[in-house]
């Protein structure tokens, strides 16, 4: 299959935008979080300063660390970067998109999760093991709920490919889908859990008893840590883009209209800005859950996603 230059350009642009804008999204959310909590906000560019500082430093690893420990940051970063390349955020005409549908995308996130958990256990410290166990607990509950939420969209469009979903949703006549209301609530809960956000985990603390994501990366330093931080920004970016693709797919360029990419980039940034503000708002108004309440929280997501599928069956829409 011959790839058109526009498609190639769209793919390249999407990678670059994801890599460049992901820390910006994190900075934007942190800024709003601080403002909403009456704190002085860090600079919007703070994540870039942190990355710059970490890349300058000398990497140190524990003596007992194996190859797995050293390789994990690159694997995780690779997974998240390719996830960002697959989700149609700017254009649906992506040469890489046919490589992975929604199910493979969930698998990609799972691969990163397995590696980061193994690496956290690799050194043998107590916190790493604790974080890895909690991460797997959250992951195994969040994954089916995420799949069910994606399947709600798949049932409507008869395809598990994200580009096909966006094409169908954005460019056919506007219709209200009740099943997507269920999928939307479920997806929001899952994204909060998967991205270590407040009801499930607090990204801003290193409190031993509650941390999950921070416990996993506790042993990392310098460029390894920088890559992992960047990867978690990319993960948030990818999840935001999946959410936008499923629920607000308007403004994404199509294969036959490459000039629409001029609109789709500002549209994407605007949607992400609004989404980031909403995330900061959710994080501000909700209290962190006990870790043993998290299965309950995720069960709600799973049940809602399943009901979404059932409602689709009942109403045929």
């Amino acid at each position: 299959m011959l790839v058109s230059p526009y498609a190639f350009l769209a793919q390249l642009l999407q990678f670059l935008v994801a890599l460049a804008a992901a820390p910006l999204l994190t900075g934007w959310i942190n800024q709003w979080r601080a403002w909403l909590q009456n704190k002085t906000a860090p600079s919007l560019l703070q994540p870039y300063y942190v990355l710059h500082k970490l890349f300058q430093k000398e990497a140190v690893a524990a003596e007992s660390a194996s190859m797995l420990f050293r390789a994990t940051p690159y694997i995780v970063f690779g997974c998240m970067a390719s996830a960002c390349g697959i989700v149609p955020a700017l254009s649906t005409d992506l040469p890489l998109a046919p490589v992975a549908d929604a199910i493979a995308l969930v698998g990609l996130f799972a691969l990163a999760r397995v590696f980061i958990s193994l690496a956290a256990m690799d050194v043998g410290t107590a916190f790493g093991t604790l974080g890895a166990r909690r991460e797997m607990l959250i992951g195994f509950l969040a994954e089916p709920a995420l799949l069910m939420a994606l399947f709600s969209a798949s049932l409507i469009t008869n395809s598990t490919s994200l580009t096909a979903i966006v094409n169908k949703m954005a460019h056919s006549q506007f219709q209200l889908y009740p099943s997507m209301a269920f999928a939307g609530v479920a997806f929001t809960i899952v994204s909060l859990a998967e991205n270590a956000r407040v009801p499930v985990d607090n990204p801003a603390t290193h409190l031993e008893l509650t941390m999950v994501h921070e416990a996993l990366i506790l042993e990392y330093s310098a460029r390894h840590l920088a890559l992992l931080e960047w990867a978690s920004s990319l993960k948030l970016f990818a999840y935001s883009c999946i959410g936008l693709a499923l629920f607000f797919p308007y403004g994404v360029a199509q294969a036959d209209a490459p000039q629409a990419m001029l609109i789709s980039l500002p549209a994407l940034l605007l949607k992400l800005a609004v989404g980031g503000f909403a995330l900061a708002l959710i994080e501000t108004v909700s209290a962190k859950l006990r870790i043993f309440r998290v299965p309950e929280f995720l069960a709600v997501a799973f049940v809602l996603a399943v009901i979404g599928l059932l409602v689709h069956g009942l109403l045929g829409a």
Partner: protein
Amino acid sequence: MIALLTQAINLFAAMLLILAFAMITQRRILNLVHLFTAQGLTLVAATLDVGYLTAQHQMYLSAAAAFALKVVVLPFLLHRLTDRLQVRFDVEPLWNTPVTMLVGILLVVFAFNLASPIAALSASIARATLGIALASVLLSFMMMITRAKAVPQVIGFLSMENSLFFAATAATNGMPMLVELGIALDALMAFLIGGVFMFQIREQFDSLDIRHLERLREE
């Protein structure tokens, strides 16, 4: 526009079901009252929508009555009741939420299957949502069964009445006004009696836990 409003009925129905599930998992009494108010508002919106689409003007009246009773009066009374019982910020321990939720899915499947042949006989524009309305009724019923405290039980009862109201709208484009008013007043009376009852329970047992009523005492 008409097509969009027709789809909006399904959306309102879906919102009612989401709210029913939210009520099952909600521990805080204050939040339960808020959810109940939201349920009432959704119901009013759905009734207005059906009334507009079928050009039945008595539906506007019934929506207005529902608004007055279910969005203004009952939440106000509930707020006052929780204030006076001093259970406003109470947190109720729930029995195994994931299992309750899974039973909820079974109820939804059951209701959907039960409603589909009935809906096929109906000529109403909202007939597809009959299954959702039935599922909400069953879920509210389950909430009444699983809760131990008196106030959540009363809220469960009122939310069941809301779902019944929606079921009537979905199946027949609204009940006759007289029946509707009768049911609404019944619900109000049940609520008032329930309120008196709650004060009695608390005076007897120093708690609103109705499990105290299950024990027999020899005196």
